[in-house]
């Protein structure tokens, strides 16, 4: 059982939080491994991997109130969307382009998350467009005096887009209840951070009149800690923040990329040693929330959930071409 001086206890996290966070990290990892296998079997034409980012995503969304707060993620955010209410079935119906895909009914490529029910705003492929939507939603929440905080996520490549700077500027001017999360994995497809970002991402916050913090994106508790401070600040009406979570993606950008053309195997191996999942497992053991048997049982349970999700998604139908012209505009009654 957790002791009073444990890191998570200091952060206000309970044992059930830790177990749930761990579960979502595992679900994301196993969904990812499964989707790659399906891709290699020719059963999934396109895969956007999440592995490596699980701690940054689950840690950051854990600071929000699901059901009330609003999320504008980007395509890498599978773990985040699982923690926000997506199921493995939802992930795989999206992967296969099935009619039950909650994001788009099979219209968008996989990993273009969205669900009105879960307050996950629909996303596109052009980078950082969602960050401006987050700013508009945050403005609307403030205008309506609603108690809601908006979170938006992007990679360090996204911070080059004009949309990102516009949103930072607008959020700073209007003190919006908004938290910007940069999942900095150091590569925008093949372009290294050194050619993408002049200076440091988190330091850009100062230029937009808000605090900027950097943290270890491979540490779920560190990610949560920074997110919690920023979300509390936003909820208290003190305005927006920028959080930079440093991490690494273990696979290529997508299944259509080959990272061997721009990253050394040694570098990938070095980062694999900092894998957020074994790291969190060490913590869970150290505070005696889980023992080896507990870890094994959680892993097996997550794998079974993923397998069941794949099965259900396989059983789901493809959308009918007769529906192709629907929902361009609101249909006449």
């Amino acid at each position, binding site marked *: 059982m957790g002791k009073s001086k444990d890191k998570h206890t200091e952060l206000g996290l309970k044992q059930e939080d830790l177990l749930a966070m761990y579960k979502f990290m595992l679900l994301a990892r196993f969904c990812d491994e499964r989707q790659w296998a399906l891709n290699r079997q020719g059963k999934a034409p396109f895969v956007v991997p999440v592995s490596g980012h699980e701690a940054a995503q689950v840690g950051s969304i854990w600071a929000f109130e699901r059901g009330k707060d*609003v999320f504008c993620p980007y395509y890498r955010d599978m773990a985040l969307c699982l923690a926000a209410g997506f199921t493995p079935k939802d992930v795989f119906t999206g992967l296969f382009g099935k009619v039950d895909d*909650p*994001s*788009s*009914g099979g*219209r*968008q490529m996989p990993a*273009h998350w*969205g*669900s*009105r029910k879960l307050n996950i*705003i*629909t996303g*596109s492929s*052009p980078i950082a*467009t969602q*960050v*401006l*939507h*987050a*700013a*508009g*939603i*945050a*403005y*609307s*929440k403030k*205008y*309506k005096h609603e108690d809601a905080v908006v979170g938006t996520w992007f990679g360090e490549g996204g911070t080059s887009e*004009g*949309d990102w700077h*516009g*949103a930072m*500027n*607008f959020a700073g*001017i209007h003190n919006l209840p908004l938290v910007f999360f940069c999942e900095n994995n150091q590569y925008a497809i093949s372009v290294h951070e050194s050619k993408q970002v002049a200076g440091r991402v988190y330091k850009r916050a100062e230029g937009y009149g808000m605090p900027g913090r950097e943290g270890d994106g491979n540490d779920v508790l560190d990610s949560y800690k920074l997110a919690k401070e920023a979300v509390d600040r936003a909820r208290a009406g003190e305005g927006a923040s920028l959080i930079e979570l440093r991490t690494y993606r273990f696979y290529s950008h997508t299944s259509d990329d080959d990272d061997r053309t721009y990253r050394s195997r040694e570098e990938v191996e070095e980062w694999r040693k900092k894998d957020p999942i074994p790291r969190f497992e060490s913590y869970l053991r150290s505070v005696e929330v889980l023992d080896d048997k507990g870890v094994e049982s959680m892993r097996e349970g997550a794998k079974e959930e993923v397998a069941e999700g794949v099965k259900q998604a396989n059983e789901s139908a493809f959308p009918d071409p007769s529906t192709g012209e*629907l*929902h*361009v*505009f*609101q249909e006449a009654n």
Partner: protein
Amino acid sequence: MAEKTLIQAIHDTLQEEMQRDDRIIVLGEDVGARGGVFRATMGFMEEFGEERVLDTPLDECLIAGVAIGMALDGLRPVAEMQFADFIWPAFNQIVSEAARIRYRSNNDFSVPMVIRTPWGGGVHGALYHSQSIEAFFAHVPGIKVVAPSTPYDAKGMLIQALEDEDPVLFLEHKKTYRLIKGEVPDERYTVEFGKAEVRREGDDLTVVAYGLMHHFCVEAAEKLSGEGIEVEVIDLRSIYPLDIDTVLTSIGKTGKAMIVYEDNKFLGVGAEIAAQIAEKALFDLDGPIVRLAGPHVPAMPYAPPLEGWFMPNPDKIEQEMRKLATF
């Protein structure tokens, strides 16, 4: 009932709608303290406050993107692009986001927003204050593109746009702002999108136009009437949805069709209308489908003779009408 200029009609309508519905928020460059460079929002900041009448940073992409976010959260944003020529930094947000959100989310999300912008030439605005932008946006499914040309329609179509559940690009020809006056009823009414209006009846020739060009066409048609040529002039009003039926019905009567627009001729709105006429009414035609439009140069030049060379005007229109009527 009062006589108003087109800009007055827009100002008053937007003001009245904001009084009725606090979901409506106005945002753009200089819309607050200045009341808009064309004064469309004059006095709004004083009446509705800075929270509802936002002077935004000078960032058109931001204006569109933030408005999308507001609409996704249930507000009814009215985004002003100060000149249509400045809309291009917002193109991605409008085309890739606003227009696609309903479709891409399988009807889970929608973007009820209005983008108002002054467009068109004839005001010595040169390359960057004269552009016609309608063809770029009308090409994109998921956004409606309308261009009222009278104060009456400006009111009814603006209310229609505010009630629409999808994004509307609301084009206001800047030359018509103070040039065109007309009666505007005091009561609230809407003008349905996708309904063209026959402004002048005639049996010899059908001419289709919108915005300022529609007024020039009526002027030219009146002159030709003295020669015994009666031109039917159709004001399109709405570019998408397009009311091709009204055009085809008229051609069934006249047998001749001409489209006048001040955009570049190539792949402009007239190209689509001509194609639909060819598809649907070829055997009703007694002459070629004629397009009178801007030349294939990047934009309207500044010097008066060059601007005059670029723009269709009542004289040029009258000549083309006469040629086609006597074909």
